[in-house]
């Protein structure tokens, strides 16, 4: 669960990019975040991770067992300095630039970096990494040096790094960027299969249409539309008002 209540963020230069923004994503939902360039999609995600200090209330909840807690949330933490490590442990963030995400010499070392920081023994962390790589069909990248991968391979490896952390919620910034059609298809399949809450920021509206059940449109620092993906992404007028276009697959269908 992720809840923003009246969240505002102003860049040091004075430009307000999030302006009293409020929304809530329930546990298990897969939500697409769309909007033109520079509307603050990445900043919104950084605010959720406490990487930028936004005003307002941000609450992050962990997926719980419905039979025990009675609902899908067992623990909800309000963003503050004390809760920050626990909140970051819950959220997995895929950066726009994979080169910034992968900083260890090899893919395997990058994958075990997070789990070992959180106290997982090395053998267990390596086993978990193996499982994730096998699931993604990326075993061949296991010992590959990070600087010897193509852009697409780096992207898939960065996703593997995230999944090895077993986060409760995934925040993905342009996950399909720099992927070839085959890997993009693989990513879409993966996103559909992955359980847990997901917030996907993307300009790839076709992917959003396929993977997300709900869509938020961000403009002028506010959520200007929030509804089922099938409805919003078919509303040409709404999309054009927000400097967006119909997904390509719908344009072809006419």
């Amino acid at each position, binding site marked *: 669960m992720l809840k923003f209540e009246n969240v505002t963020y102003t860049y040091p230069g004075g430009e307000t990019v999030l302006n009293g923004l409020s929304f809530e994503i329930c546990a298990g939902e897969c939500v697409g975040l769309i909007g033109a360039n520079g509307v603050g999609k990445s900043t919104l995600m*950084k605010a959720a*991770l406490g*990487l930028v200090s936004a005003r307002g209330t941000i609450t992050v909840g962990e997926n719980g067992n419905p039979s025990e807690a009675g609902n899908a949330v067992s623990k909800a933490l309000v963003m503050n300095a004390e809760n920050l*490590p626990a909140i*970051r*442990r819950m*959220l997995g*963030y895929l*950066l726009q*630039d994979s*080169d*910034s*995400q992968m*900083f*260890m*010499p*090899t893919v395997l*070392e990058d994958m*075990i*970096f*997070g789990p*070992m*920081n*959180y*106290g997982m023994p*090395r*053998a267990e962390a390596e086993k978990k990494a193996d499982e994730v790589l096998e699931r993604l069909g990326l075993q061949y990248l296991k010992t590959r*040096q990070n*600087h010897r991968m193509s852009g697409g391979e780096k992207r898939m490896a960065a996703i593997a*790094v995230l999944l090895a*952390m077993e986060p409760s919620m995934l925040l993905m910034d342009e996950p399909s960027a720099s992927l070839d059609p085959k890997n993009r298809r693989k990513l879409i399949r993966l996103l559909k299969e992955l359980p847990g809450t997901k917030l996907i920021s993307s300009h790839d509206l076709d992917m959003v249409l396929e993977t997300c059940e709900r869509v938020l449109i961000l403009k002028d620092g506010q959520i200007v539309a929030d509804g089922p993906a099938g409805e919003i992404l078919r509303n040409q007028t709404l999309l054009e008002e927000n400097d967006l276009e119909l997904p390509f697959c719908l344009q072809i269908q006419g």
Partner: protein
Amino acid sequence: MNKLEKARLEVREMDDLAAGNSPVHGMTPLSKLFVTVLYIVTVVSFHKYDITGLFAAVLIPFIGYQIASVPVRTCFRKLRHVLPLVAFVGLLNPLFDKSIQMVIGNVRVSGGVLSMLTLMMKGVFCLMASFLLAATTSIEEICAGLRKLHVPKILTSLLLLTFRYVGLLLSEAADMTEAYSLRAPGQKGVRVEAWGSFLGQLLLRSMDRAEELYNSMLLRGYNGEFYYAKKREYGRYSWPAALITAACTVLMRFVNVPAWISHVIGGF
């Protein structure tokens, strides 16, 4: 591939070297750090005229290179920009110290020449030892070793990020130079008039990327400790090997090995 891109790949090559599997790679970082520091201190402590004693000091890093399967020429290739600086140290000594300290055949060697040569040798040997440490130990392992010595987190994090930052800086510089050269055909390098804005942009861009990288580390639980740096298993021979090397280093300091060999073999 431009020069900066090559330089970036060279920095990355250190990770490749550190990923090796030799007995030296298998030693604990702390034991290697101990031997390296002791070696450097010992080499530096040689008297400025003790050139014959110093000759033996090259054996320790040289043997280390052979066991680690790191070619010595790799060290000199990577340190080619630093070596002239080392060579420059003491270049003026012959002008100030003209006392005759040694006679080889009919050639009289002044103290200034001797001290210049010993200074150069000390510099080169210390660089060789430091490079061997860096080539057989990942930066994370070195930082983990330093943390065990209770070096503050802030310093070890700074060391780690500086190492990673160099790569980022070179990568950004390579991209910018490439973009510049594509729009400035026939020009060699970046025009002087463009240096200011070029360097400013480079700094801003690389700082942004470095911040992203640090954020990425924070988001995965990095708190200044290096839990992930430990290899699966370090050799049990680490400390015995380190102590033997340390003993040889100290012995080499107090026994003039070349003089002793010439005495035993040649009776001089």
